Each structure stands twice: as C-alpha cells, then as structure tokens.
C-alpha cells in the first residue's frame, strides 16, 4: 500500500515538474520555429509547431544585413578577456577577505553590498567622462573595465564564502612551508574552490555576453559593436520582422546555451 502511494506521489511530482519544465522551455521552441519562418508571409493565424517550409536562409540573411559575424567575434573577445580577469580579481579579493580578521572583513563586506546597490544609471555619464579621459571610448577597454573590480561585488562575496569554508589550518601549514599570500592562494586556495570558480566564470560569461548598455553607450564604430547592439540595430531596421529578429536572438542565445549545458551539473546539480 505505501509502496503504491509513493509511486503515485513520484508520478505526480514528475508530472508537475515536467509541466514546469515545459512552461520554462516552450517559448524557446516557438522562437526556433518562427526563426525559420519565411519572412514577409502573412502572420500566422494559429500556433505553428513546425515551419513550413523551413527558411534556413534567414540565418545567412541576417549575417548579410549586418556584420553579425564580426559582432559575434567582438562579443567573444570581450568575454575571453573579461572572464579570466574577473575571476582573478574577484578570487584575490575573496581570498584576502577570508584571511582578514572578522571585523575588518565585515566592514569590507558591508562596503561590497553597498556598492552592489549603487544604481547603474548613476554611473553611465561619469564613467563616460572617465573613459573618454582615458581614451577608452570606442575600445573594448570600456567594456572590460568592470573586470578590474571583479565585475560585481557579488562575485567577490561568492569567493569569500567559498574560501571561508576552508579550514584555517590548511593555510597555516602552507605558511610554515614558506608559501606567501599569493602562493597560498594559488596552490592551496584555488584548487579547493573549483565549483565556485566555475559558477563565477559562467555568471560572468553571461554578464559580458548580455551586456547591452555599456556597448550602447561607449562604442561608436560599427566594427567594434557587440552582438547585443547588433540585435538592437536589427530591431530598429524592422521592428516587426519577426523571423529575422528571432533568428538573430537564436544566434545570440546559442553560445550561452551550449556553455550552460556543458556546466549545468556544476551549477544546479551540485546542490
């Protein structure tokens, strides 16, 4: 009897969880389908689950309308520089915080939380003035600059929490072996916070890949634009050209999706 009940319950659980999965994923199916729709056709009158005929040419078309390939490379370059840099700075700061005396660490953490609260809107113009003083306008430098502070105080906190879980004795023994602060961090600390490092890297990748405001404000020339700006431009060219717009959205989503599938175990499965 209890066996049957638990089976039933498991069935109910999977039905419910499956429905939620569907709810969260079905929009992407729709997007994929509409991205293959013949542009210029009368809008659909009912739900289409399969494009008929599938206009694969939409994808080459958007790459011809705008230099999306170039934008894609730009986005990738930004991400490839900023993610390692962020990880380095945030891990250092988190490590240092974890090694500081409790009181000093708490003050700095309060500072970090306070920094997190500063509205981005208040930074747009002064940063622009600073960047133009430093001749960073229209360079990737303006986009990568936040990596110099570990991108977000949140990442620093993540590292701080991770390093704090490591027993102090480990570092004590390291110090006896003659490891300095950086040595201790590199040889003893980092290998023990692998999952956090992966999490920060993924979050950071998504952050820079999605970044829309910074390139919008700080880039000027076409050849420097990133994919996010490219999508906005495509929308401005034809605000209701759904098949092409959705094709571009798919192009932008695919890399993050691939990355997510690769590391999702480390991300949500770990807990």
């Amino acid at each position, binding site marked *: 009897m209890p066996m049957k009940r638990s089976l039933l319950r498991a069935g109910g659980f999977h039905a419910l969880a499956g429905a939620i999965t569907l709810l969260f994923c079905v929009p992407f199916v729709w997007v994929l389908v509409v991205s293959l729709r013949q542009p210029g056709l009368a809008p659909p*009158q009912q739900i289409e689950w399969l494009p008929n005929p599938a206009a694969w040419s939409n994808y080459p078309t958007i790459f011809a309308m705008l230099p999306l390939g170039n934008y894609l490379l730009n986005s990738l370059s930004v991400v490839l520089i900023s993610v390692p840099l962020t990880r380095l700075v945030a891990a250092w700061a988190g490590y240092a915080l974890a090694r500081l005396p409790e009181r000093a660490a708490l003050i700095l953490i309060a500072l970090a939380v306070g920094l997190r609260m500063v509205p981005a809107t208040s930074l747009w113009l002064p940063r622009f003035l600073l960047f133009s003083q430093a001749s960073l306008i229209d360079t990737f430098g303006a986009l990568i600059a936040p990596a110099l502070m570990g991108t977000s105080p949140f990442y620093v906190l993540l590292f701080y929490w991770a390093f704090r879980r490591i027993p102090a004795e480990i570092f004590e023994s390291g110090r006896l072996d003659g490891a300095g602060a950086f040595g201790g961090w590199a040889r003893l600390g980092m290998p023990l916070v692998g999952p956090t490092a992966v999490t920060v890297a993924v979050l950071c990748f998504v952050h820079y890949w999605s970044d829309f405001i910074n390139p919008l404000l700080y880039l*000027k020339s076409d050849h420097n634009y990133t994919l996010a700006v490219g999508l906005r431009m495509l929308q401005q*060219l034809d605000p209701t050209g759904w098949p092409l717009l959705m094709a571009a959205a798919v192009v932008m989503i695919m890399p993050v999706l691939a990355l997510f599938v690769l590391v999702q175990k480390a991300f949500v499965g770990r807990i």
Partner: protein
Amino acid sequence: MKRLTLLLLLVAACSPPPTHTEVSFMVFGDASERSAYQQLVDAFAERRPDIRVLLLHVPGQSDYRKRLGIDFAAGTPADIVLINYRRYAGFAARGALEPLGPYLARSSIVHEADFYPQTLAPFRRDGQLMCIPQNLSSLVVYYNEALFDAAGVPYPQPGWAWNDMLRMAQALTRDTNGDGQIDQYGIGTEASLFRVAPFIWQNGGELVDNPAAPTRLALDTPAARAALLWFVELQTRHHVAPDAAAEAAESSESRFLNGRLAMFLNSRRGVPTYRTITGFGWNVAPLPVGHQAAGILHADAYCMPAVSRVKDAAWAFIEFANSAEGQAIVARSGRTVPSLRSVAESAAFLDPAARPAAGHVFLDGIAELRAVPVLPQWVDIEEIAGAEIERAFYGQAAIDEAIRTAIERTTPYFAE
C-alpha cells in the same frame, strides 16, 4: 596599480599613428542608406587619398540622437555628423557646431545659390548658415499599384482631396480571408505631430501660436482641431488604418513592404528599401489637398562639431558630398531628394528606369513646403505632443483631452 595602467595603455594603444588625416562621419539610416553613404565615402577616397573618412552608422533616429548627446558631452563627437533640422538647434544653441556659412562662401565648388532656399532656411541661425543640407523631401503617399488594380480603384492623382483618400482607403481595407479580422489596411501612418502637421496647415491651422516667436502649441484652434480630428478618425472611426494591437503585431511599413497595406505616408527616406520590393509595383502621389496646399519639409544636413580638430579635412568631405557629383551618388541610391537644384532635376534623381515613376512629385511640391519651428527643445515638444496624438489615434483618449494635455505639457519647453 601598475598592472592596471599597463592594461589601459595596452588597450588604448591598439592603432598605430596614421599617416593621413582621419575624419569620422556619423550617419543614421537602414542598411541601404548606409551603403549609399559608403559609396560616397569610397568616391571621396579616390579623389583625396590623403584623407581617410571613417563611416559611423547608427540605425535608429532616437539612438542616434542619444549617441550625439553623449559624444558632445564627452567632447568626442565625429568630425562630421548628419543632423535633421528638427534636431540640430539644441546643439547649435549651445555653441557646439561650427558655422559652415563662411566655408561655403569660400568654396569654389559649391555655391549657396545652387541650393533650394527652402532647405537652407531652417539651418540659418542669427543669419548664419550652420550646416549644409543634403536634401529636401516632402511627405508623400506611397501606394501599392497591385492592390489598387485588384480593387478596381483608380490611382491617386495630384490634386486629390482628403475625402478621396478616405474613400480609397475604405475601398482598400479588407478582410481577405473572411475570418472576421482585417488583414489588408487602406492606409498606414505614424501617429505623430510631424505627420499630422501638413494636414493642420492645409486646413488653415498652425502648429504654434506665433511661428516667429512661439510660446505654445496652437492645436486647440478650430482649424487645427478639425484637421487632427480628421486624421485621428482614419483609425478611430473609419478603421482604415491599423489599430494599436495590429500596429504592434506588424508595423505599417512592414505591411506595405509585404503587400498588405495600400497607402503609406512617408518621406523620400523609404525609397532605397522599397526598391527591394519584388512582388508588386508601387508609386508615389502627393499628399491630398485640403483648403490650401501645404507640404512638410524633411531635411538632413552635414554639420561640423566645433571641437573637431580636422576641420579643413572635414570640410573637404562635406564640400564633396554636396557637390553635384557627391549629391548624385546618394541621389542614385534613392535616399535623397537632392538639395542642389541641378542634381534634383537630373537623371540621377529622376531616373526613368527606377521607382518611383512619379519622382517629380517630390519636386512639384517644393514651393509649398513649410518647416516646423526650429527650437532647441523642439524634439521634446514633438515627443510629448506625439504621445498625446498617438493616444487619440488609437482611441485611448478623446481628441480634446489629448490636445489639452499636449499643450499643457509642452508649454514649459517653449519657455526655455
């Protein structure tokens, strides 16, 4: 610290020092407009290999305006910027633009007398010509010949009346598949102050109380109100234009391009894109006529920011772009109605092989063109009034309520 400075230097020092003068040139517009300017830049490069022009392109007008604002604030605008006459005054008022009148006076290639005076006028400030306008378009009616033929409706003819337009639009608004939903509309237009303005003028109304020194919008006069009401009722009463939901689903311009909209109101700007239409024939007609003839000026000009460090090179490009040769290049793309009389009347613009066949419509109306007031805050005034007109057009507010709010909310901007 050291590491940081090093990195900043590294990023900043990507390009080696140029051996030629570099001039940046910023434009807005869609892909085909962009390629027209690229051709212009390429032609200039052949002539002046010592100057390299870098084309910067922003598709949307509103993003473009922000780009300009940010660039001027940071002191790093492009050396040449294309600005509409409704938008340049804010920059000129703050002394951000180099007056180009003296440059033009010294030129041996381009002369002020070669331009249509209607397009120079709004770019004059305190008697000084600030920018060099490249074009002067008017608002016209683009129509889909195939839809007119299929419905047996004769094409719009010059001198047609407002009511002719309404009746044609009614005949061309249809539910083609009988599902109770309209899928072909008679007319499409942006619901904005700029679009409705010529109708107000044609009806004997004015946009502002005193065009020479405006202090408020004058949309509440009977003549202006009647024109607004007629315009709004195209949607709210006659339903010949897409409603808010239909417009959000598929924009009027998209509908026109895809052959599901009979008439579309636009300036010359749309031509390069419409020339890519393969499914049906299209042409242009002048605006229908009310009590009096009136058209509305659309003009963009080459302006030079005062902070440019390469003014002579920048002027060389502006001069070339506005020579007969330069204007012909852009005109051939279909984008502009050239501001130089000689080019406007040449085959570069009136090419019999290229659509629209009735291109002369753009030239016929030049004498009746009027400009909106040139004020530093005009863009904001248009934007705020536009929100009200849009609300009325989509039946979300009564016309008088919209007019009242538009006047109330824009009046502070006139005082500045």
